[in-house]
């Protein structure tokens, strides 16, 4: 019996691994180090340099020694301060334990607050995969289409339709799992990979059976070391269900890698910046192959779907079936991970989490830097795809940062504007030039009308990062205009 093997990735895909090796060995990347990695990967030096310098995780000068302190929004809301000699880092995705030290650690079981079918304890059988294997590939595909499962990375695109489009190309397919969880305040994929790796592997096995991909890549956030280790521990024991082991690549940070064509450029050893769409990845993605990009939570949902197909559809709203993992943090009594059916009102989730730490809940930032703030009068809104409020709030990938009577809403809005300016990849003019200008105007004494700039940023930017960057500012201006006058 022949054993299916993966098509080898071109040598240039080794760029990130090579850069990581030098960055950890030397503590930083010199020009010579990048040139050497470039030669080993057969990439022109200028291309390796433009890629390397686009990752915030790499240092290009010897690092300043000192303890690292996370200065992400949830940690700042919970009193994070920078003592003399300490180095500030961006969100370290340990918002459930704010203020958190600036280093990665295994996701604690205790931070799983409410578990549903996705987060219930891993089982030691492969019943879901066996269900899928008992069907033909077409039948299994039809089951995915019929389930109404939508992508959990934040865009909620129907998974079955994405798969059908890629298969319709009739060419070898690439499957890319997006575990580049880079949105401040979101830690669900780290939790799934670290705490429920078998659920993820079973979903991956089902996807690999239906798509029969020639290439499979799991792209993990470069700082999620514990999640990557968990994956590497379990993979060797999965021969029974996986036709071959996926290639695991660690990123170098960057919020824009949540945009799927940017992720594909990163895997190809190119500068992580968005491509023009069309062509869409399902037509021409990784190295030109029809490519399916699915989020970790989406893949894990396949396991739930094939284990109990009857239970899947009615558990969500009409539009979207299944549950959603919510990462709750900020000024809330029980921060952590909550698995709730899509369609649940935001107020229910906030109640489950025990309410504010001080006084009242004053606002919730829903959807992080790409979302918007909501005041308590809007907490009846249900979690769903698309906008939860026209000023910006989106369920997105499920990040919710809670503000209470002790919190400064204006500071939080400014922090999001600063974050979006910092994370702009620099490719398109509206986002590169407009997002820093927006932050500058907000901090100016007499900012004048902001809506013209918000409109340009939202409507003219190339990718979702710029298009959705107005949300936090527009929503804060709409609900709390007095804070900005």
């Amino acid at each position, binding site marked *: 019996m022949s054993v299916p093997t993966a098509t080898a990735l071109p040598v240039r895909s080794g760029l990130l691994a090579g850069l990581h090796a030098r960055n950890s060995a030397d503590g930083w990347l010199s020009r010579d180090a990048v040139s050497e990695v470039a030669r080993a990967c057969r990439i*022109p030096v*200028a291309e390796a340099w433009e890629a390397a310098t*686009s990752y915030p995780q790499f240092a290009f000068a010897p690092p300043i020694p000192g303890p690292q302190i996370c200065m992400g929004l949830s940690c700042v809301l919970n009193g994070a301060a920078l003592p003399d000699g300490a180095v500030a880092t961006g969100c370290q995705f340990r918002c459930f334990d704010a203020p958190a030290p600036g280093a990665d650690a295994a996701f604690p079981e205790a931070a799983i607050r409410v578990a549903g079918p996705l987060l219930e304890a891993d089982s030691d059988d492969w019943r879901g995969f066996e269900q899928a294997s008992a069907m033909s590939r077409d039948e299994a595909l039809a089951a995915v289409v019929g389930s109404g499962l939508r992508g959990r990375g934040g865009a909620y695109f129907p998974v079955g339709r994405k798969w059908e489009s890629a298969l319709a190309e009739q060419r070898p397919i690439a499957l890319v799992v997006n575990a580049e969880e880079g949105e401040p305040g979101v830690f669900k994929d780290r939790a799934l990979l670290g705490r429920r790796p078998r659920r993820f592997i079973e979903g991956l096995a089902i996807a690999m059976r239906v798509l029969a991909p020639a290439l499979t890549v799991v792209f993990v956030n470069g700082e999620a070391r514990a999640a990557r280790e968990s994956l590497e521990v379990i993979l060797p024991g999965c021969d029974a269900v996986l036709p071959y082991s996926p290639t695991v690549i660690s990123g170098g940070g960057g919020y824009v890698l949540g945009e799927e064509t940017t992720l594909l450029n990163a895997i190809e050893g190119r500068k992580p910046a968005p491509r*023009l769409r069309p062509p869409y990845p399902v037509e021409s993605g990784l190295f030109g192959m029809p490519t399916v990009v699915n989020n970790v939570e989406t893949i894990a949902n396949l396991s739930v779907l094939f284990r109990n197909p009857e239970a899947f559809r009615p558990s969500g709203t009409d539009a979207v079936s299944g549950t959603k993992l919510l990462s709750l943090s900020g000024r809330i009594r029980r921060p952590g991970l909550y698995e709730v059916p899509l369609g649940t009102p935001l107020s229910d989730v906030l109640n489950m989490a025990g309410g504010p730490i001080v006084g009242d809940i004053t606002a919730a930032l829903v959807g992080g830097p790409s979302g918007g703030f909501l005041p308590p009068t809007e907490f009846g809104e249900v979690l769903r795809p698309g906008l939860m409020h026209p000023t910006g709030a989106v369920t997105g990938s499920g990040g919710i940062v809670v503000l209470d009577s002790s919190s400064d809403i204006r500071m939080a809005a400014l922090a999001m504007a600063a974050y979006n300016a910092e994370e702009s990849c620099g490719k398109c003019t509206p986002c*590169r*030039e407009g997002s*820093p200008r927006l932050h500058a105007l907000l901090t100016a004494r007499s900012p004048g009308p902001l809506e013209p700039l918000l409109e340009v940023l939202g409507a003219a930017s*190339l990718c979702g990062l710029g298009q959705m960057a107005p949300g936090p500012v527009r929503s804060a201006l709409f609900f709390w205009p007095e804070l900005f006058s």
Partner: protein
Amino acid sequence: MTSGSTLTLDGVVVPAAGSVLDVVLAAGVELPHLCKDDNLPAIGACRTCLVEADGRIVAACSVAASSVREVVSGSERAVRLRRGVLELTAAMVTPGDTSGGPLGVTFRDTLARAGVADSPPDAPQPRSHLDASNSFFTFREDDCILCGRCVSACQALQHISAIGMAGRGRATRVTPGADETFRQSVCTSCGSCVAACPTTALSPRMEVRP
């Protein structure tokens, strides 16, 4: 009307061939397109060729004409947004007195036609380096609008890859090699980058002209 073979541009039915930008330009309608080079695939970085296509704002360079039914090039919204993007672009450069390459006047002409003012001569710029290491051309960063045409010409047309777009956000810079000069890089002085530059950032050196 059969969708795909024709489209309505500003109320007139025209053949739908190529990109929406191709259709608009073929009809003689003026539309800025700072990063679209005749010799290169669309880059989609400058965001100045915005039009309204089937009610949505799109960059005309990156949409197939056959995929839309109606294009309005001069809708109030499209004009307002184009102007907004051009103002952001104008603020990137300090007006200089260099002559530039064959397309060097494109950017100034585009601003003039749109009635967008130059940034003040003393506006602080994050990029201000002058690379005069090459014998045939100079690179003045403070005239660069980061449209990406030079990099695309070097990487995708000539397959030399002497230059890239290093850094991110406002720190993005057109950069030879691993932060080297043009002379230190693998640049062959082919001139494709100079020929593609729509501003005066990449300029032929006058003293070596025959």
